[in-house]
């Protein structure tokens, strides 16, 4: 076990020689693309599954199965399809995050109080308009939970992917630490990964959740 001092030293050195900033930027760039794609696929898929019984019985069951599959299992296939490239890792991230977002969106939409839908209908909203003006906003708290869940799944998938294969990124530094037996570097990197996760949860998701709770009156005054 490395001493706190050596871990601190590894941190200072890593930020000093810019290896951490470069790695963080590389990892976050992959996250943005992968997570963005997961949102772009996950939300419409959740909507479709909630709306159509046919899609629920076919793709819906597949989604439930896929969600339990650790996304890193896709890496061999991704390497075959995309070669040793950025695309392979992003694919793993997408597979890791999409289905938890889909499941949350689907659940949120199915749990929209029928009263609100009826109110929307009697006020003249139908079809797409009803979905956009009533169903989606009503499902927003559940969708936000799904996005938060999706983010942590994406982050885990990314680290696993980078650990196994990548040129840059935080996972890569972990591999280097292992290869050189530099446990201080490994621990320092784990700290960086942890703190990044905390920052996103603290400054992105928590404020969004609080704002929503306040608006909906779900928060104790």
């Amino acid at each position, binding site marked *: 076990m490395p001493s706190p001092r050596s871990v601190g030293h590894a941190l200072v050195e890593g930020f000093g020689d810019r290896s951490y900033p470069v790695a963080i930027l590389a990892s976050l760039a992959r996250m943005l693309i992968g997570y963005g794609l997961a949102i772009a696929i996950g939300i419409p898929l959740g909507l479709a599954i909630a709306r159509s019984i046919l899609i629920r019985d076919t793709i819906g069951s597949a989604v439930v199965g896929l969600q339990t599959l650790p996304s890193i299992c896709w890496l061999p296939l991704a390497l075959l399809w995309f070669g040793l490239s950025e695309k392979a890792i992003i694919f793993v991230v997408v597979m890791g995050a999409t289905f938890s977002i889909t499941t949350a969106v689907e659940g949120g939409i199915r749990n929209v109080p029928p009263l609100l839908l*009826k*109110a929307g209908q009697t006020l003249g909203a139908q079809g797409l*308009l009803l979905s956009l*003006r009533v169903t989606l906003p009503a499902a927003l708290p559940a969708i936000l939970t799904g996005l938060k869940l999706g983010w942590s799944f994406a982050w885990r998938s990314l680290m696993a992917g980078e650990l196994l294969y990548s040129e840059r990124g935080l996972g890569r530094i972990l591999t280097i630490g292992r290869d050189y037996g530099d446990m201080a570097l490994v621990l320092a990197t784990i700290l960086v990964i942890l703190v990044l996760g905390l920052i996103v949860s603290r400054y992105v998701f928590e404020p969004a959740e609080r704002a929503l709770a306040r608006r*909906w009156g779900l928060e104790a005054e």
Partner: protein
Amino acid sequence: MKIELRGVWREFNGQQRPVTALEDIGLEVEEGEFLCLVGPSGCGKSTLPDLVAGLQEPSRGESIVNSGAHGAPVLIFQEAGLFPWLTVRDNVEFGLRVRRIPRARRREIAMEQLGLVRLQQFAEALPHQLSGGMKQRAAIARALALDPPVLLMDEPFAALDAQTRDIMHQELQRIWTETGKTILFVTHNVREAVCLADRVLLMTARPGRIKDEIFVDLPRPRSVSNPELAEVAQVALDHLRDEIQKAEREEFDSGWLYPEGRLPASGPGVVASPR
């Protein structure tokens, strides 16, 4: 605008066998009339406003709503059903927004309707900040903003406390007088019906049929505590008594009905006895 139902039946697929909620309903509502439907719980009376609003189709018969250019009837529910993510004003504007009314006009109409239900100073509040009665008033304003020819009200005050309900009875009579809307009001509360309506239709327990018609010709505004009104309500209650008991029998196990003034002597929980 006139509403007419001719030989309307409505059946549902129950758990074991099909359930007939409405049986051969025929009724007419005249323009500007305040009509109340009263029936025991579970008599299918709440299905009726849904049929008129077009949210459900009759299994048999026809529901004719001469809507003309004025648009469809609007429903008001037991729970206000305000959208929690919108302010009170945005809630009232909802139907206008769906109809693509320009923003300035929307705001004008919303504030006018909020004035009618006396909620203008709460225009920017969120639904969860309102009391039950205020929510229901906001829901009424939201419906009236569309200037519907008919208001369909499905037990709108059933979830309110007694004092608030009394106030809402006064308010609704005032709103009805000021707007001249046709109102079809469904309730299980006979006194409420007699207090509000020109004409009361009494419904039977399931299957729901129209059993009797009572005309209420008392001066407005009426209050539930008015003794004359209590008399009319008693007449209506006598007509309905059998039906209420029939409905209760379906919902309770057997042996629930005790002779008046006597509880069963045995059993846990019965302690008090005169010495």
